[in-house]
């Protein structure tokens, strides 16, 4: 079996170790004996349905985010929405998460439109929320490092990724972190997220295979000793 990982705007949106998530997907897939290929989907490249089996969308600097927003509004946003409706697993972090929401409102300046995968919106905040973060989720405790000033708020009917155990999360106010719609996840967890959360990595791989091959998939149990050591050490110190 084989998976194509679509790295959305990977040349423009990859800060705070977001690339580590791609490395982790490739590493764990290899353990499960699944071939992977990484496909860069960015400004100037084409993107259509079934081009990728998993999508990853990282964070970026403000100037990149404006360019990317424009490109999403043209054609790619529509395809991404269709793919998410189809059940494609997607992981987005920080800037990528914000652009998949409804909009980003900067302090002064024009609203940056999102593509509305998530029923959520983001408003520029006065201070940066920086530090280690632990979140209680369906995948157990997720751990990462957040660094954002944007505050994201979910609509009532929107599902959060999890509850903040320590750190700030979506907005530092309501104890929520991230967002889920179908198999798409948005969150503020850099870190890199996936290396230290292998349960989530494996879930993304499994879900992608199920959608692609249209059958129930059971992944074999693989060694996670190093991942678990890093988790244990992180959680005991945090």
């Amino acid at each position, binding site marked *: 079996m084989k998976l194509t990982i679509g790295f959305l705007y990977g040349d423009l949106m*990859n*800060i*705070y*170790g*977001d*690339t*580590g998530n791609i*490395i*982790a997907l490739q*590493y764990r897939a290899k353990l499960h004996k699944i071939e992977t290929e990484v496909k860069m989907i960015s400004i100037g490249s084409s993107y259509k349905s079934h081009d990728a089996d998993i999508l990853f969308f990282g964070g970026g*600097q*403000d*100037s990149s985010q404006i360019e990317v927003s424009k490109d999403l509004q043209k054609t790619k946003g529509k395809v991404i929405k269709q793919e998410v409706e189809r059940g494609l697993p997607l992981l987005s972090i920080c800037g990528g998460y914000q652009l998949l929401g409804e909009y980003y409102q900067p302090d002064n300046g024009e609203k940056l439109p999102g593509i509305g995968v998530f029923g959520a919106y983001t408003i520029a905040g006065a201070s*940066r929320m*920086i*530090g*280690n973060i632990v979140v209680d989720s369906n995948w157990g405790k997720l751990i990462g*490092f957040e*660094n954002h000033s944007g505050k994201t708020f979910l609509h009532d009917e929107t599902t959060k990724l999890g509850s903040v155990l320590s750190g700030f999360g979506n907005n530092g106010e309501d104890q929520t972190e991230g967002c889920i719609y179908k198999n798409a996840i948005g969150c503020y967890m*850099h*870190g*890199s997220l996936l*290396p*230290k959360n292998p349960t989530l990595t494996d879930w993304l791989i499994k879900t992608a295979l199920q959608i692609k091959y249209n059958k129930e998939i059971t992944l074999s149990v693989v*060694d996670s*000793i*190093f*991942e678990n*050591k*890093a988790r244990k*050490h*992180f959680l005991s*110190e945090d």
Partner: protein
Amino acid sequence: MIRLIVAVLAGKFIAFIIRTFTQSGGSAAPGLVALYIDSQLVHKLAKQIPKNIVITGTNGKTTTSAMIAHILSRNDVRIIHNSTGSNLSRGVASKLLLQSSWSGKIFNAEVGIWEADEAAFVDIISQIRPAHIILLNLFRDQLDRYGEINTIIEKWKKALEKASWQKTLYINGDDGHLGDFKKESNTEIQTFGIVDSPVHFEKKSDNINFDIKSQILSTDIDNTEIVFGHNGFGKKVQIPIVGIYNVYNFLTAYLVVSDLQISTEKIIDSLVSFKPAFGRMEKIRVKDRDGLIALIKNPTATTQVLETIKPMIKKDDILVIILNDNIADGTDVSWIWDAHFEKITPNLSKVYITGTRRFDMALRVLYAGMKKESIHAEKNIDTIFTKIAEHELKEGRMFILPTYTALLELQEYLTKKGYKDEQWHKEVKL
């Protein structure tokens, strides 16, 4: 005048207190207090120095300023230099006030060499008004602290446009981020670069008309040999420090020192005795085993270090990584995922890891392709050296890569154990 004297005295007093009660030489605190009393202190003291050089950029500041300082000192030029990485305004102020008389007079300095943090650069040049300004390179580094690259460049440009005095700008011509600084009537620009540079810049410049060009001939653990010159390749030189990026540091040091009337021959002669700045490709010997220490601090610099040591690694050699997440290291260790450890894992048979985030690093090298049984995470550096002594062949050399606070701890450990005779970091910035 009175204000300056009070500021200098207060700063000297604080420095005296710190020295007496903490055993740790200077620091930023005296400068901080003195600047609080007289915000113009740096300007008032620095203007008494005939020539000032300010060096900024993401990587290479410490090595470049150390090289300039070394060449000038060897040629009997009296220098003043913030040599300890105290590269914020307060660090510059501390150094100046400690070298001045109580009445605020600087007597014994012909050239001031000032390493400036990227964010502090604007403030530092407006105070010092240097005749020589070096822009080494610009890479993404601690975005939360420095802001975005474009923002930094805009700030530098504005500051340089406002700078009304006569000056020379020395610019790395290979770094595309530094491409469009304007030549103005009061500013001369000199660029330097490497032909077919193997260094990865975030934005590579397409202009190859450097004022001074160089070509790399060979590189090994002791030397980097290059030819360089203004027209064609005139001179051959051995830079006694490993790492391609140090070629840039040498070229700019050469340019600025030449402008201070030191001849090419004298520069090349005095370079022979240059020793790398502490922890920057510094050689050590522990328990009869050779080692090389190279600071790692951000993805680009780390990847450059990895590229540099890759061709040197032999079968029995050992990699030691010390990853801390204290404030001076950056509390966010996610940068290790942006550094290309994949480059060296195929050459390596053993990795020892310690530091506060050793398990993150163990995971990083595992995901970069190391075998589990080749990765050893240990609680402290002493255990690592002991285990290496017990288990590894004595031909195996150590390549030690510490983050900033880990480097300080390592130096202290080596000094305590007698592997090093001087405790260099007595003047650590606060």
